């Protein structure tokens, strides 16, 4: 071997070999794991387009009561754009003010219901209760119900993205 001269002692060479093994190993490990981490953790490049969907006819909603409306919207899910059924709990406060709640409990995502007698939303999973404004009355839910962005055009109720408010 070329560097088997007298200038290099055996432990020297051993140290050099070990250093190269670990050094190159670390470089290759990083070169593989960093792109993989980026690949798995970064969100897809395309931004979600804002989309307004017509969900209900305002004139048919009763004031002060929660009603579940079902509508279709496009969902970009990885490589698929699918039109899927979603729902919202809509509370019409007046002809110009409407709130629309996303249909999942903010605790663990169960579908909640409306108790007409108590005028409350209650979640069957861990008995969180919310009032008509979406505020937590009791139970383990960490934050008020999530709301859709709402736009009113004439009699049409348009829903946009769901906005999540931190607790």
């Amino acid at each position: 071997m070329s560097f088997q001269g007298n200038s290099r002692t055996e432990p020297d060479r051993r140290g050099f070999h070990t250093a190269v093994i670990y050094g190159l190993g670390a470089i290759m490990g990083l070169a593989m794991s960093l792109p993989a981490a980026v690949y798995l953790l970064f969100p897809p490049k395309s931004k979600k387009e804002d989309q307004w969907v017509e969900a209900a006819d305002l004139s048919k909603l009763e004031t002060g009561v929660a009603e579940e409306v079902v509508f279709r919207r496009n969902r970009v899910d990885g490589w698929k754009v699918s039109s899927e059924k979603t729902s919202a709990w809509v509370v019409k406060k007046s002809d110009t003010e409407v709130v629309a709640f996303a249909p999942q409990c903010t605790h663990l995502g169960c579908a909640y219901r409306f108790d007409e007698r108590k005028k409350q939303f209650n979640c069957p999973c861990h008995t969180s209760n919310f009032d008509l404004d979406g505020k937590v009355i009791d139970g383990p839910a960490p934050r008020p119900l999530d709301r859709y962005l709402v736009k009113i055009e004439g009699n049409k109720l348009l829903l946009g993205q769901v906005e999540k408010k931190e607790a």
Partner: protein
Amino acid sequence: MVKRIRHFIESRTGLETFVNEFLYEDIPASAGWHNVMGSVALFCFLVQAFTGVMLSFNYAASPGEAYNSVKFIMTELTGGKLIRGLHHWGASMMIVVVVLHMVQVLIWGAYKKPREATWMVGVVLLMVTMAFGLTGYLLPWDNRAYWGTVVTTQIAGLAPGAGQYVQRLMGAESGVGVVTFARFYSMHTLLLPVAILLLIAFHVYLVRKHGVAPDPGDNGPKGKFYPSQVFKDTVAIFVAFTVLFSMALILEAPLGRLADPTDTSYTPRPDWYFMFLFQLLKFFEGPLEVVGAVILPNLAIVALLLAPFIDRGGVKRVGQRKGAMALVLVGAIGWSALTGAAISGTPKEVEGVATGGPAEWAHLSPEELAGIGYYRKENCSACHTLGEDGKKMGPDLAKSGIRRDAKWMLEHFKNPQEKMPGTSMPPIHLADSQLNALAAFLLKLNTQNAKELRDAPQPAVDGALVYQQNRCNACHQVNEVGAKLGPPLNGLAKRRERAWVEGHFADPQKFSPGTTMPPYRLAPKDLERLTSYLLSL
């Protein structure tokens, strides 16, 4: 504390002893740089396994969906191109490395007694590696994948007696389809990985059992595997890794159009390492086809397997193994010749480069060609790419994920905001007929022709613009597009002189008495452009 943990692990698992035994294995004094290929092959496998799992995290294992998900990986995910590039080029590299490993063993005669079994398992490993390549080829489900697999399964069907059953096993009895896809996917991700792991384990066990083959007359003191040989292996692995990583960064792994069983224009080609088999078939016709397709390849495999039993002479120094070297040389030359012939015989459109033959733009209708003109005039390339590298604000129009129809495009050109709220694209202020031409051009684009269409010569484009503006297509046909009232204009140069054509525009009656063609008073520049274009058809 660390010591105690180490002691605990050692006493309960014996892990340290195991690792030490593995690392401090005796190796012959003659071991050296020529022994690195086995480790490099193992490394290649690990890269394939890792990137394969990464890809499968974003891969839909059903035809059609598969294509969309691969496209999603390539265009939407950060690092997706790199990961797929590593897997794609890694497959080729693994074949190269495994073959180099075998060539080394062959030249050194390292398969001789008692290492025959090690060699034979190695040959099976080569087959498994090729099976990985074959099954993985289908998984992107583009035209290349689909048509390549059609040919493969047809070849398998040629096997005498067994053909039909092999085809049935591949799920391709009634053509390549969902069943084939499921079988190939399952082979590629379940069966073959388990098989290769077991075989590698067995192979390594055998290498350890018999030790690395020493050169003849090597009576020197035994060395240790770690660190001096591990150092050489690591350096070789690093070189291979650098090559692979650069390839993945520089060369984009191909993804053509979605598999289209009705696309008769597509010329199927296997991956380069199967090209020699593909070319071999051309020498055997009719009833002899089975010789090239089945008999010869299988004989070659058997010969490889039996090599240690055929070459039974005593152990010789490398320099004296002239026969083995000659064999490797002949094999390499034969393989290169077949592969070279297959590649040079590949029609150009498959590779996406056209040299000679009618240029890509010459196939366009004048309206489509004029579309290129509007694309240039409106400076669309400020925001869009046409298949070239580099990112711009707008999508790459050669491979924009979702193909739209002309009507959608027209509305989008006029009012981009309406079709795509939030887009930063400005409206294009052109007449409907001009926007139609632009849409027609864009609909014609794909990743294979984009580069060439982008570079279509300006004189031809100018001529097509004049043609389109004067609505020549109302009476004439070019490339079979247009009305048949007047004569078709392809091949005009063969029939008429330039002066005749130019004169004819100004006064058709003079040149073709009784014609219904009205006179055209074109500006001299336009007349020259239109005539040049028509004469080039």
